[in-house]
């Protein structure tokens, strides 16, 4: 990485100053943005209330397409949530040091994405007020949950993932919370003080802390693979042509990392600019994330191809028809958006110059986000709309309620992210410091 020549802060104290600068009073623009996002969330809540009062019929869902935008968006956000853990845990275990500058942001993204995702199964069910029927606990109803159901697996997969992500995020944050506590003098002192759990920075605490991070990484690593595999089984375990396929687990995991990485770039570029973090989130990060995106894009593209190949090779007419319908039927537009955005658009990232051209790269990632949302939309709607019984084919169009709630999910995610930016250090101070000192030992690069 010798080619990367941006300035690295000279002294360790500078890190605290740079990174904790975010704790200064927010600008009016920031406040307006957060309020706007809160307004979007409010619109979503209103739409949900409307839907809860009248019934799912206010969504566009119809026979035979019983799942639509909500499940699409659920899978989308679960996918987004994957980059955080990948960056934090797997790259930590692989000692990929470049992750240190972006891991906090990615972890925060994970937590908020999981939070967003977890709302959708609830929004999606017909009787949201009975959601607790899905939680297995001894109850007076004398009922139990069905552990054969992939949806029940989802309950566990998402909850486990949320728990580990939050823990991981929080444990990593403790030393920085202490640094923030020491820096502010208003009410936030008490907040940070409480959250810092009495961190003093003793050697013993540091030892326990690094142990905890290591163990949590170990726990989180399989989740990167398992959570989205489980989510993919929501589809793969069914008999629906276009869903019932063994490639789904790796295909979904790759897609999740693909979309997650893209989202990291989408979110971090403006943050880097706004907070002047160019010295921390450097070109090498974009270069590496670009490589990840190209790799996963290729895997996803391969999966698309294999699906079509298998449809043809299986000689299963239902499967063939389903895929023909996917590419050339009612939903051709969605399919071609998906293929263009996920396979064609990322191709320039093979070129290093493109990866280092941040505005261009940023625009690409937005297309990738769109493409990955459509990937789930295509899988869900084309599969369901064109199943076995020709008399029961249909065409699903999302309603304004669904689109409002979809927009609100972005508002929800970004609102929390923005609040996080102003409340907590966006970069893990101790980790960049580590990098700094190690860097000095290694001669300025690694």
């Amino acid at each position, binding site marked *: 990485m010798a080619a990367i020549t941006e300035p690295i802060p000279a002294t360790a104290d500078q890190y605290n100053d740079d990174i904790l600068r975010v704790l200064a009073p927010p600008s009016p623009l920031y406040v307006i943005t957060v309020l706007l996002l809160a307004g979007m969330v409010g619109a979503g809540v209103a739409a949900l209330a409307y839907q809860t009062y009248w*019934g799912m*019929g206010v969504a566009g869902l119809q026979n035979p397409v*019983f799942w639509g935008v909500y499940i699409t968006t659920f899978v989308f956000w679960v996918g987004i949530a994957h980059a955080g853990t990948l960056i934090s845990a797997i790259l930590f275990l692989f000692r990929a040091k470049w992750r240190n500058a972006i891991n906090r942001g990615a972890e925060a993204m994970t937590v908020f994405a999981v939070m967003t995702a977890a709302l959708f199964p609830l929004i999606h069910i017909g009787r949201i007020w009975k959601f607790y029927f899905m939680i297995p606990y001894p109850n007076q109803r004398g009922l139990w949950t069905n552990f054969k*159901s992939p949806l029940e697996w989802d309950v566990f997969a998402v909850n486990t993932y949320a728990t580990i992500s939050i823990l991981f995020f929080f444990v990593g944050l403790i030393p920085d919370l202490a640094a923030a506590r020491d820096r502010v003098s208003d009410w936030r002192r008490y907040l940070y003080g409480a959250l810092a759990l009495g961190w003093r920075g003793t050697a013993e605490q540091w030892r326990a802390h690094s142990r905890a991070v290591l163990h949590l990484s170990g726990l989180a690593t399989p989740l990167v693979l398992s959570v989205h595999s489980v989510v993919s089984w929501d589809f793969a375990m069914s008999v629906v042509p276009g869903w019932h396929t063994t490639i789904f687990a790796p295909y979904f995991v790759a897609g999740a990392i693909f979309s997650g990485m893209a989202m990291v770039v989408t979110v971090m570029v403006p943050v880097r600019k706004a907070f002047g973090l160019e010295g921390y989130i450097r070109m090498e990060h974009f270069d590496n994330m670009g490589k990840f995106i190209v790799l996963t894009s290729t895997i996803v593209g391969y999966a698309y191809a294999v699906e079509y190949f298998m449809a043809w090779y299986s000689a299963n007419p239902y499967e063939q028809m389903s895929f023909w319908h996917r590419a050339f039927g009612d939903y051709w537009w969605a399919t071609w958006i998906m293929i263009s955005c996920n396979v064609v658009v990322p191709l320039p990232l093979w070129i290093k110059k493109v990866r280092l051209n941040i505005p261009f790269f940023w625009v690409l990632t937005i297309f990738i986000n769109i493409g990955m949302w459509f990937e789930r939309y295509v899988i869900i709607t084309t599969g369901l709309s064109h199943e076995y019984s020709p008399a029961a084919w249909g065409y699903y169009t999302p309603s304004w309620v669904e689109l409002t709630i979809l927009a609100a999910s972005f508002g929800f995610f970004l609102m929390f992210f923005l609040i996080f930016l102003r409340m907590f250090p966006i970069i893990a101070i101790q980790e960049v410091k580590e990098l700094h000192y190690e860097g000095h030992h290694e001669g300025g690069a690694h």
Partner: protein
Amino acid sequence: MPELDRRDFLKIVGLSAGAAATAACKDPVETVIPYLNQPEEIIPGIPTYYASTCRECPSGCSIQVKTREGRPLKLEGNPSDPRTEGALCVRGQAALARTYDATRFEGPMKREGERLVPVSWEEALQILAEKLGPAGAAGKAVFVSGQESGTFDALLDEFMAAIGSPRRLRYELFAHEPLRAANEKLFGVRDVPRFDFGKADVLVAFGADFLETWLDATAAQVGFANSRRGGRGFAVYVGPRLSLSGSNCDAWLSPEPGSEIFLALGLAHEVARAKPDADLGAVRALLEPHTPDAVATKTGIPADRIRLLAEKLASATAPLALPPGNELHGSNATAFSAAVQLLNYVSGAIGNTVSFTSPSALSALATYADLKQLAGQLEAGEVEVLFIHGTNPVYSAPQLELGPKLRKAFTVSFASANDETAAQADLVLPDHTAFEAWGDSETASGVRTLQQPTLNPIRVTRQTADVLLELARKIEKPVPGPATFRERLQAQWGDLDAALAAGGSFDLAEPVPVSLAADLSGLRFEGATAASSDGNLALYLYPSNHFYDGRGARLPMLQEVPDPVTKLVWGSYLELHPTTAKQLGVVEGDIVTVETPAGEVRVPVFPHETIRPEVVALAIGQGHQPLDPTWLETRDRDRLQRSKVIGVNALTLLPDAVDGDSGALAWYSSKAKITPTGEKKWIAKPQTTFDQEGRGVAQAVSLAALARGASADPEHGGGQEHSGSGDGRGEDHHEPPYADAMHLETEEFDPAADAISDTYRWGMSVDLDACSGCGACITACATENNIFTIGEELVRGGREMAWIRLERYVEHHEDEVEVRHVPMMCQHCGAAPCEPVCPVFATYHNPEGLNVMVPNRCIGTRYCGNNCPYKVRRFNYFSFDRDVESPEELGLNPDVIVRSKGVMEKCSFCVQRINAAKDKAVIEGRVVADGEVTPACAQTCPAKAIVFGNHKDPTSEVSKRREDPRAYWVFHHLNTRPGVTYQKSIRRNETEEA
């Protein structure tokens, strides 16, 4: 005063807050109040059945009304009725809704300016008595009724005689005038004969929709299905559009529009030629010019085909030709009917499958010409008081513009709900509905059915018969005999209680022999001519299977059952052939104007292949005037479109052209001009394709292959046969996937695995050869299982709720089409894909093999719906029960839960009936016998296509049908092991010997 310490304080605060919170989120308490004085015959929770008569059409089928706690809930055909054998049609099953209709008249109404306003019975009768006295004395009162028979009919005669004005008109839109006139010319009997479908082995229907509305359609369905069991029978349909009846025939001949009569004559000619020894008198000479070749030129039907069919008719033991229904009544209607009756005569059907009995109730029906005469009398002021009961001529005879004419007389309507005629009345004296009233009828001679009240009148209505009796007393011209209608019935029937227990007396009258008139010189056989306003497409109006003459259109449930041919709902659609659509430059949903010399309507088009290219077709029965808007002011939603005009009244397109011989309106008499308007309607289409893409949902086997043993056909691996007959009709162009695995192998069927119970594995069998696609099962199911009607908008949005989807598929065999109907309901799979995916066990497999749905446990993930390959699960997108208008809730079946928003539902195999039968069996210490449980669909099926029973009982009917070589499972390769086995329909080939 004791100290209140902190802990106690907190306890109290906590307890009261908790109590308040709990109370706030509790469901409202509902109380069950027992009877203080329990009425006799009523045991709460136990249904009571009363025999009665269905009055949805003139057929008057005997029915049994299931009541619970004094409310009728479900209608079922009376098995004692020899015509229907316990079946009831799609309209009959929906009939109860009339009684619980929220839009019924609350009580008597009188005219005030342009509006009808409520009035008391006393005042109403007083007003009427004042008018009737002088009018009756002057002979200026007329009673227009629908087809009536029995005691009420006699009473009407006596009443009109008593008041001094014996003028009556029994007006029905389907009055069979040409058939009656033809029979008079041929046999000297101006009547409608009885057609014995059950006996017929070769049937030719000349545009009679005998399975839908023509004569006793339910009886015809029963007989038709009975005559075809085991691959017997051969039926041909003649007409420009393949109706539901046509689609159940084995061949479809569509002559040039207007030339259908010549086909009948050509067939008669050939049949007569094949019987050189028969003494046919003058007939031979009459038929002389109609050689197959001459007919072929006129009709466009190849002469060979005519010869072939004539051969079949000539060699048949019980041939039957059906004279045209209204849809083919052209300017030559009587001649056409006579031609068909001649065909019946020469083929020996008269006295065999076509028989005359003592004058039937239909013989007394007025003709269109009679109604026209009345219109003239009204116009001329020759009528002062006009009674209208049970018929709606303002709607059904728009040519006569009766509305303003009715206003010239003092018109009294007895309608129980508003209709076009009642809206013009000066006085409305609402009658009870059929389920609140006494009555009897004798439509088929010898079959006398009784009708009795099954609930207290819901509204302030009175039985018309009693109103008339009181009225006569009021004007001091009493009707002789007992003073109430109930007593008159008693007098008529003798032991009324015994008769009520049976539902009537059911001895079909013996036929009366007839002979052909010696002089047939009055017969002129001409093609139908058509009036045109520079249009070039023959306009073909047909009676609707669901709405009959229009009376069914007010029942939302019937609006929502997809039409058996177009599969469309809630509207009128102009049917035309795709090539015609192309020529006109229109596509599905484009709104066009249809113009004839009589009028024009705007209607969306629906191109489909089962109609002749030169013809456009439109169903009658829609386009009713909306209800009084004041009724709707109090309602928040109009999902069922009660304030809107649904579709168009196609009858307004008919010019006032009459078939001179019979006085019938000539329906098939116009050419229509079609002009695209550029507007478009987004059509609600529950079924989007008629092509089953070779997926083997609806399978068929040819008779020849069946005879060879289709199951063991080594060349072709299984049940999907490939007949080698070489004419192309035997080939199935679409090979179902996994053809080699499609046949149901007995060893694969494993009730033991599918149900852990030792005794029961419930299952169903659907014989597609019998199923006509009439849709009676759908309305029966909806009534039994509280399935809500949701309205056009929601059907368009894909939210249909019907548990049975009657799929219609069209198969193409070179130049011929074959239509197949498949009732698709929950298959209660042994290995149901919906079960494992439910996270909360809301759907699970019960020990008896049922795939049980528990709505109260459902949270609405809808995964089950996704994973159901048959797509028979239905989701409650809204709380449809919110739209229930009082008193509709009284008609809900208390044995079946009313589902609210957010839960799934589906066919339960009528589990409430299974449980009732099991309870009974347990008390009696035995197992449920075969045939003891009958779901609503199977019960009402006129074709007995659906059979329900226990697969673990090897002697049960379902087990036997499973062993049939025609048995198959839909989507067999998915290994869902359905509890429903289908039996392939049988393709009877023209060229084969049965």
